[in-house]
């Protein structure tokens, strides 16, 4: 059984489709990252799974329960950290977490220790008795995700969990997310931060204009880009042209550019397989390799490849 499964899931606001016929699955105990620019439908999908929004048509199941017909049961097994932490202006972080833990049924005996640990780990301990309205943006965001870490649900949903958070805070949140997965939770993270997706994801779903464009592991997504890897070579050879020709004939070569007397830039698919073939060719051609530098595509390039648009451009738009 999938932890999450949607079929022809559609959400429409007037004439605008936020989600269109979305088919999407998450395996048990998996971290699935939804990658897409603002307006791609990430948050809408999360809110439908959390039973906060109702789908216009299609269905969505969480742990085998339909979100439309069993919303209360679905809410009992999931926890969600929203994109923006708002609305508790006159409450204190410790009180907010205590309330959340109580309502979500966290055992009383564990509660205080758990809250203290999470507050300390996310560096909110000093701010635990401040009013919410006096927290900084980063602190408020950390408090928002802290709710999920205190709850430790079977299915956790995190909407841009590290936006507004500094690098140190990001690493702490990522570590908590990985710990949650180790304990058996299934996790769905929506983000438009490539680095976050690469760090956390078991699989990535690229969402664009309400549709799933592609879904796979980060490695396979990168490998699926033809010519996605770049290998920069510095080779001492007597015949540049002959070597360039030989390299261009290798399996996996997309393009070879001679960028200097003995410098080559090769655009290849799956550099890890191409490089041994290249060294073999150089050996047979009596060419001496002076240096090799391999760079791989980022998820930005993956997004560009599958949607024809750059993730960063659409996010900033």
């Amino acid at each position: 059984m999938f932890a999450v499964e949607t079929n022809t899931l559609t959400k429409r606001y007037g004439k605008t489709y936020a989600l269109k016929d979305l088919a999407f699955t998450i395996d048990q105990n998996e971290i699935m990252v939804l990658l897409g620019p603002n307006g791609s439908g990430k948050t809408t999908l999360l809110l439908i799974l959390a039973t906060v929004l109702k789908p216009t048509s299609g269905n969505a199941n969480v742990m085998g329960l339909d979100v439309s017909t069993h919303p209360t049961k679905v809410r009992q097994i999931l926890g969600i950290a929203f994109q923006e932490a708002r609305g508790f202006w006159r409450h204190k972080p410790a009180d907010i977490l205590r309330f959340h833990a109580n309502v979500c049924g966290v055992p009383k005996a564990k509660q205080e220790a758990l809250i203290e640990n999470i507050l300390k780990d996310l560096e909110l301990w000093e701010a635990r008795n401040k009013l919410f309205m006096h927290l900084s943006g980063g602190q408020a965001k950390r408090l928002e995700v802290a709710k999920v870490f205190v709850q430790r649900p079977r299915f956790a949903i995190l909407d841009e969990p590290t936006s507004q958070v500094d690098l140190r805070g990001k690493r702490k949140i990522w570590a908590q997310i990985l710990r949650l997965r180790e304990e058996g939770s299934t996790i769905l993270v929506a983000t438009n931060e490539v680095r976050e997706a690469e760090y956390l994801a078991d699989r990535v779903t690229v969402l664009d204009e309400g549709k799933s464009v592609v879904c796979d592991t980060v490695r396979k997504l990168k490998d699926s880009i033809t010519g996605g890897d770049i290998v920069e070579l510095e080779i001492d050879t007597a015949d540049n042209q002959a070597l360039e020709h030989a390299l261009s004939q290798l399996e996996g070569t997309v393009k070879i550019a001679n960028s200097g007397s003995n410098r080559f830039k090769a655009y290849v698919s799956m550099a890890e397989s191409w490089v041994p073939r290249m060294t073999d060719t150089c050996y047979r051609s009596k060419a001496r390799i002076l240096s090799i530098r391999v760079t791989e595509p980022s998820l930005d390039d993956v997004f560009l490849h599958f949607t024809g648009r750059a993730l960063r451009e659409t996010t900033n738009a």
Partner: protein
Amino acid sequence: MRNVIRFIWFDLKPELRPPVWIIMEWTVFLVQVGVYGVIISQLVTGINDYRRFFAVGLVIMITFDMASHTGRHFVEHAHEGRLPYLLSLPISRSKLFLAIALQGATELALMLALPLTVTLLIIGNLSLISVIACILTLFWLGFGIAGLMLGLSFIAFKSSDLYTAIVTGLSTIIIRFSTVLYPFIFLPAQYASAAAFSPLTYGSDLVRFILGFDPAVLLNPVYAVCVLAALSASTLGLGVFLIQRLVEGVKSA
């Protein structure tokens, strides 16, 4: 049910630290009754000791304000981004609605504690039975008004400004065209017909009947009981229906 109580307490606690708004409301009430009520009762001759009538009217107005506040609270939850959180909690929609309504009732009880006691003292009817009967009637009226305002809050869900405008206009009409401040029999015919549609007319006349005011200047209490019962059942039923079928947290693309 435990979650409903937790919800009420969680929301109420910050309001009581310190309870400035309650004390302000009490102060306004005392000034109204002690200054305005005393002066105006000397000018009003058609009714015996108008201050007593006026004090009950003020209690009804506080009840109306607090019940309207419940609806506004709900719209604010939506606009401050708190509603999605509440909707994602493992509580059924009807319990969430119940919690919001009971929170309004609790705030109403706190707000009315002093004004109702003072009013009963002025009237000279501070007995256990009159206190219980008044509280029940006021809660009943409060539930009906809160249900009405929650229903309105769905109409004005997209804009808290629109909600405020509707409620301000409506409260002006509902309070002015009612027997909150003037006895029914003294109202001009056109005013009286409008007052017959105000729920506050029935709430205030029923409270006055319970407190032993002259029945000749009040509406028939049987009508009042029927209207309040119909109001609270229909508006609360409508509210539960709307929250279960229509409420969504935010509209995000």
